[in-house]
């Protein structure tokens, strides 16, 4: 199987509208969660979110283009542009045959939620029978992948992946397999969500899993999750392709592991999570003791964080006490289908800069989450390999394994 490396990353998140800004926020433990803006009424209780506050659509797209783009596609395109620019690739590199060897695989849990919300409000609430002719192309969950393909002329396998909060990691894992097995030479892959709409926030409220203070993963006194949004997109290449063009390699994308719990539609299962972590390690040919850091799913709900702790202990045994585990959702919130890709920025950043991002908002230890969760303060530590966990409603798990490139 061919080796796969990461040569570019792009991001939009509550910490900033670039991977550079997002990682700068993560490595200093900055809070991106803040007062909810732009959504109100209808007895909304939620007052906080990790919104992409400094994202200005007009700074990136002209009016004609914006008509075609739900925020979910806007975020993905901006992240894709940054990733491609960092990799040194450009649209011209995809002219002719190379474009046919270039894939785009983007995960999203929901798709064009803002457009869906607006369309429903006009139709049902306002009784306005006229629906915008671009509504369908904005709503469709494959819009982010298609828009990236169109913008850069990437004409290989291109599609969306949906697995709720694991969509990013499933998409990245899918792209990894495609490159490993010769289906493409280069891919833009990641995930995106633009989910802070009235309808979606109300739906999360109804489950009674939302924190009213902030997101405190693994901490005693945690009160649930905080919704976030944004995108993460990465340039993945076969090692051969990257070396042939003299690309700067950020990290090796060494493996992905996937599993389903088949246990409960929402309650997480330690067995399923552990199987995904083991599968990622096996594909990456990593022993548990090689792993220095895990970017946890760490939603801040009671159920996830205790179950994830048990799963990590089951996989890593005694080494679980030696490795660092943090949840950057404490800083950018839970971006659902975009979460895993935003969190992969943390893993690549940690491998690049020898700094582990903290779990902020941490109050005091919870005996049921007895891991080294890098509480509140970033930590200087050189690691050689890391995992990034994503566990979705529906019992779907996807774990990525990255290794320092050497």
């Amino acid at each position, binding site marked *: 199987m061919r080796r796969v490396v990461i040569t570019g990353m792009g991001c939009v998140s509550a910490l900033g509208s670039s991977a550079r800004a997002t990682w700068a926020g993560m490595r200093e433990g900055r809070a991106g969660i803040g007062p909810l803006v732009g959504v109100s009424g209808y007895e909304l209780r939620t007052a906080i979110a990790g919104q992409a506050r400094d994202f200005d659509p007009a700074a990136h797209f002209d009016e004609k283009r914006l008509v075609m783009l739900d925020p979910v596609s806007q975020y993905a395109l901006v992240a894709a542009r940054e990733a491609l620019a960092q990799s040194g690739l450009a649209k011209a590199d995809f002219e002719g045959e190379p474009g046919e060897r270039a894939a785009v695989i983007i995960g999203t849990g929901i798709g064009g939620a803002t457009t869906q919300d607006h369309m429903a409000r006009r139709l049902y609430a306002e009784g306005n029978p006229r629906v915008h002719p671009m509504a369908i192309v904005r709503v469709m969950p494959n819009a982010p992948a298609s828009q990236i393909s169109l913008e850069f002329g990437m004409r290989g396998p291109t599609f969306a992946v949906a697995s709720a909060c694991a969509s990013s990691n499933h998409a990245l894992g899918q792209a990894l397999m495609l490159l490993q097995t010769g289906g493409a030479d280069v891919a833009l892959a990641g995930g995106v969500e633009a989910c802070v709409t009235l309808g979606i926030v109300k739906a999360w409220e*109804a*489950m009674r*899993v939302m924190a009213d203070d902030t997101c405190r993963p693994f901490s005693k006194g945690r009160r649930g999750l905080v919704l976030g949004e944004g995108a993460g997109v990465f340039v993945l290449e076969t090692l051969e392709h990257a070396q042939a063009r003299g690309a700067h390699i950020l990290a090796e994308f060494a493996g992905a592991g996937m599993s389903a719990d088949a246990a409960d*539609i929402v309650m997480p299962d330690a067995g399923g999570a552990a199987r995904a972590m083991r599968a990622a390690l096996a594909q990456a040919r990593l022993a548990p003791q090689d792993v220095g850091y895990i970017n946890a799913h760490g939603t801040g709900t009671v159920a996830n964080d205790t179950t994830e702790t048990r799963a990590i202990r089951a996989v890593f045994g005694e080494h679980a006490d030696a490795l660092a585990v943090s949840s950057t959702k404490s800083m950018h919130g839970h971006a659902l289908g975009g979460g895993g890709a935003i969190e992969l920025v943390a893993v690549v950043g940690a491998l690049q800069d020898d700094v582990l991002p903290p779990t902020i908002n941490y109050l005091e230890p919870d005996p049921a989450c007895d891991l080294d969760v890098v509480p509140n303060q970033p930590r200087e530590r050189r690691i050689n390999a890391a995992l990034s966990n994503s566990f979705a409603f529906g019992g779907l798990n996807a774990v990525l394994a990255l290794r320092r490139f050497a």
Partner: protein
Amino acid sequence: MSSTEQIIFDIIAKTCSIERDRITLESTLKDLDVHSLDAAQVLFEIEDHFKISVPEREDQYSAGTVRELIEGVDRLVAAKSTVA
């Protein structure tokens, strides 16, 4: 049995697939093996039926006894009619 009581017993029994005879005023949802998602559904059905909003994180509603739940709902319904 008050009408609130009857309705809430019905909602718990139907939403959680529990035999109505198992439910007593002194049971908690936990005693009845009602998991968090089912509990959220019970509260939703109650909110929807009585047109009230059940506050979050108040143990009376999700962690207390069925009696406490009924008393709380009666209070919320009374408060609503005062406002209206």
